């Protein structure tokens, strides 16, 4: 189950924010997004709990498009987000 690809969306880059805590979680994801071009897709791996309840929403509020949020089933989530322009 966990090894199976859960989505047909192919990310252009990936970042893991499970190794940092609030508020750096959001900052790390934001920095990763800044390195992408508009329209490209970032995959963000984050922990369950506080990060998944705040980071996807905060990224959305920054104007990016949240495509999918996948429960990896191991206490982490994968967020797929499309970078939008300023």
């Amino acid at each position, binding site marked *: 189950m966990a090894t199976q690809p859960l989505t047909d969306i192919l990310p252009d880059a990936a970042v893991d924010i499970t190794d940092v805590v609030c508020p750096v979680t959001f900052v790390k994801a934001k920095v990763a997004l800044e390195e992408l071009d508009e329209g490209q897709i970032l995959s963000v791996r984050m922990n*369950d*709990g506080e990060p*998944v*309840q*705040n980071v*996807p*929403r*905060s*990224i*959305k*509020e920054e104007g990016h498009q*949240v495509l*999918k*949020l*996948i*429960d990896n089933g191991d206490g982490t989530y994968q*967020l797929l987000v499309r970078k939008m322009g300023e």
Partner: protein
Amino acid sequence: MAIDYKALKNGGFMRQIQKDRFSLRLKVVGGHLTSDQLDTITRVSRQYGDGRVHLTSRQGVEIPFIRLEDVETVKEELAAGGVDTGVCGPRVRTVTACQGQAICPSGCIDTYALAVEISDRYFGRQLPHKFKFGVTGCMNNCLKAEENDLGVKGGLAVSWKKDACTLCGVCTKACREGALTQTETEIVLDESRCNHCGRCAKSCPFDAWDGASGYILSFGGTFGNLIAKGEEILPIIRDKETLFRVADAALAFFDAHGRPSERFRVSIDRAGWDTFKEAIRAAYEG
């Protein structure tokens, strides 16, 4: 000339243990001061006080060590710099607020705007005893609404939008009240468990919740000599008109049932919570 301490106190001048020195209480609404006001306060404190200010437990500012003979001049200089003096005694005190929706991402209501409205309507109004309003933006309760005679807490009345939902599962985890369950096809909301915290709507990355702002009121809180937590007796209020109708009724009840120097809580306890609830219910229903 005999000194009218009571008049001084009503104007926010608190007598100090040092002879003929007063600590001047300033009017602050919702914990906001502009940098211009702070400049004025700094100047007055340097010139007429001892260069310090005291921050009170309810977002107030006091300038201590004002001399009796400077009282009028100080008032004028403060007024010219956009700073009003506060009040003491048996009346509606400083209306406190957290930063709320205008600044804090967790906020469900515009606390500052509401604090200003409450203050404009009631500040300084005479009552049997002191009366405190506090406004907090959400269930996190940074402003501790229930410590106040009348506490206002922001909440969201939420409803799920099936079409936008991807069943990602975040909202059910964000809900701390066990009010949400996720099935194969939908999110089920148990209204009886929902406390209007808004966490579901705030955490959803797909905007799949509608959240309508509302006010949750608590009555009879007091944290002085007597310690008691304000009680919620009404459902969430959805409009300001009802909010003010209820607040008017609460103050009228205090006027009608309160004895001098008795806090709102004690008056409600003596008159009976059933009687109080009846009066508040009637106002709520309009």
